[in-house]
């Protein structure tokens, strides 16, 4: 079974070229250490740099300054023991559901994967849709394909970028429990990006609040709710509510800042 990896961001800044030729600072002096097997949730206002942080961890981009390390090695390229569920649809449009989910095992030249693939199709509730192409699926179904496609490879570092945001409440609950069970058995390191604070607290060992962009760590909360947790029920727990209020107080300020900026941005545009 996969064992979790240690992850660390040391003094990481990342900036992007803007279309106008300037720079946009997405991360600024981000410092973060994640223990092997820890389940960490990143929360922060939209556009603050959460996806960017995951992209660096996956080796898809390099930091402008600072180091991102996985297993004490500086990340310089993609590593196939990292699994990434992208925020936006990343299923292969020319592969049907079966082949999309079987993509990892096939790329890795596993010999016996049929029963594994079928069990994952069942786990994500897509039995009967094996030969559908992505354009014949709903957004939520595509997301489930993406989840199965990633999880089937049992990554030791799992990066999830708002994986449940397109799912309806019911499927979301099922997938959350499925993820919990899986994680409790193989204890991979999970970095989970979400804008849903309840979800973050229900799932994670740690909730990291990021500042409105450029993202830095604003606050770091240990979630001491007992495990195993049933994500569905835990949100009615009294201690859960206390934690929620504590984190929300911090997060709200950042959300407000981001919201104010959003209000100002179109005004600037209109002024010509």
């Amino acid at each position: 079974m996969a064992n979790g990896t240690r992850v660390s961001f040391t003094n990481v800044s990342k900036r992007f070229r803007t279309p106008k030729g300037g720079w946009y600072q997405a991360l600024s002096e981000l410092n973060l250490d994640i223990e092997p097997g820890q389940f960490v949730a990143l929360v922060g206002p939209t556009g603050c740099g959460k996806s960017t942080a995951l992209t660096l961890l996956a080796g898809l981009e390099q930091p402008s300054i600072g180091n991102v390390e996985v297993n004490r090695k500086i990340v310089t390229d993609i590593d196939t023991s990292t699994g990434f569920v992208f925020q936006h649809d990343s299923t292969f449009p020319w592969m049907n559901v079966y082949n999309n989910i079987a993509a990892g095992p096939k790329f890795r030249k596993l010999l016996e994967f049929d029963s594994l693939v079928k069990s994952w199709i069942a786990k994500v509730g897509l039995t009967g849709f094996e030969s559908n192409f992505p354009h014949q699926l709903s957004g939520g179904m595509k997301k489930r394909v993406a989840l199965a496609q990633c999880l089937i490879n049992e990554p030791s570092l799992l990066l999830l970028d708002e994986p449940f945001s397109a799912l309806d409440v019911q499927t979301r609950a099922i997938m959350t429990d499925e993820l919990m069970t899986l994680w409790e058995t193989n204890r991979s390191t999970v970095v989970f990006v979400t804008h849903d604070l309840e979800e973050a607290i229900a799932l994670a060992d740690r909730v990291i609040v990021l500042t409105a962009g450029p993202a830095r760590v604003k606050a770091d909360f240990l979630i001491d709710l007992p495990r195993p947790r049933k994500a569905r029920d835990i949100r009615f727990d009294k201690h859960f509510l206390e934690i929620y209020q504590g984190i929300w107080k911090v997060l709200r300020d950042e959300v407000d800042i981001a919201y104010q900026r959003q209000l100002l941005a179109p005004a600037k545009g209109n002024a010509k």
Partner: protein
Amino acid sequence: MNEDFLTEEVIKRRALISRVKIHSFQTLFAVLLIGSWQLLTDRKILDPFFYGKPSGVWTQLVTWVEHGTAIGSLWVNAWVTLYEATYGFLSGVFLGIIFGIFLGRNKTAADIFAPYIKVSNSIPRVVLGSIFTIWLGLGSISKVALAFVLVFFPVFFNAFQGTREADAKLIANARLLGATNGQVTRRVVIPSALSWITASMHVSFGFALIGAIVGEFLGAQRGLGLLIATAQGTFNPNGVYAAMLIIAIMALTAEWLITQLENRLLNWRPSQVSGLEL
């Protein structure tokens, strides 16, 4: 409210009705066009000596089929042009795809070859026909070469562009899932470039025919191009039209085959984008 749902049958019937409507208008249009051409030349408003006439085209075709042409059997001539175009097409498509994907995937190679490709693309390609005739003689090879050159570039540019436009996120996803470079090329880049490539194939069979025919104009012993040149030389417009008709049938057949292939290869696309039925 169930009666509001469209049953399969209703949908099919509506589609049939609209198809019949469109086909009737198309037929009407053709009848009008050919009919007025016939009428105008019959009445000598248009001089049939210069403009030919539909009945004359038909007679010409019948004569060719029954007695052969001035340069031999019609079938042999049509076949020569067809296979010159087909060889040019297949080799152009094949090498265009290979080079396009290779350079699209390999930035350094693309940078090295870019100026050469630009220069060779800027040469007016039909002129190469003369060179090929000098180099390769009056036989079929010079025509195949010209057809090849005409087909290669559009297919190459589309394959290159399609490769470049392959979604970076999908490539990243495939690599994270364990794909090697070769697997990325085969399982991600080629499928996503395929709609670009098939798009270029639609236009390029036409180019291949142009290559074969222009080659035959420039000097040949057989082929529809030579047949047209001969008809032109004897002031026989009906002969030119008759040969054009045969060429058009070839082009339409090829277009139909390419569309079949495209639908096969791109069966994963939503049906509404599979294109205008031209």
